[in-house]
């Protein structure tokens, strides 16, 4: 597969390490009432879509950017690639 890196352009997927569902960015609040339950869901529950899937890839043999790649699990078509840091900020993650 080819991943179109937002900074570096098309790169072979071999250069990347796959992590999984991009919802791993949305780490729960440790002080919330239901923190234990929320962390359980965060860590163990995943959708397994046949189709578009937002997932985390790490450009380990490249610039060490974490990326959010939207990939169709049926066709491997990649429809968008974003810097995970931008995605995280858009999700309200900060310090």
């Amino acid at each position, binding site marked *: 597969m080819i991943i179109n890196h937002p*900074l*570096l*352009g098309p790169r*072979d997927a*071999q*250069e990347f390490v796959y992590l999984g569902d991009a919802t791993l960015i949305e780490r729960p609040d440790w002080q919330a009432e239901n923190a234990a339950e929320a962390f359980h869901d965060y860590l163990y529950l995943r959708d397994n879509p046949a189709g578009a899937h937002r997932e985390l890839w790490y450009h*380990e*043999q*490249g*610039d*060490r*950017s974490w990326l959010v790649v939207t990939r169709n699990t049926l066709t491997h078509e990649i429809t968008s690639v974003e*810097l995970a*840091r931008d995605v995280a900020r858009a999700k309200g993650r900060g310090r």
Partner: protein
Amino acid sequence: MHKLKPITPLGGTEPKVDSFPGLTITENPTRALASLSARLGHESDCATKARDLIGVDLPGPGQTAAGQTYSAIWIGPDSWMIDADHASHEILAAELKAAVGDTASVVEQTDGWCRFDVSGPAVCDLFERLCNVDIRAMQAGTATRCSIHHIGCYLWCHEAGTAFSVLGLRSSAGSLHHGLVEIAQAVCTA
């Protein structure tokens, strides 16, 4: 001057040179390296101060920039590898830190790497059997990370099609050198 005698990444007192018809591979231990990473919110200050020292703008993704004394290679978002002559700039990291102050983090990287300068008309034939980089399309002054012989490397193009440097993990210098020489033998047989 201290009493510890340096050795090259390949373990010699002198850099190793391997010559083939159309290709020369030279171990180059004469460069000092330091990473420069802009602090959050200080990216433009960092760029200004770095330019004041280097004399040119810090390069963008995939690019390098060369000043008179220092060169810079883009290595990641807001991160660069700065290169200078080792003999006169062994404490490059300290020089750099003094120049950029709190606008950036600076880390000595000199001995994290081994460097081989590879030149000659067969250089593209060599690298196309070592890494997935589009070597024939690489322009002078560009650089990219790649994997050679399973070793993470930077490939730096000085002259399109004829002169490159490859920087790899110093501890793997022997394996990287073996990989380069082995393929050089393969591509330099007529």
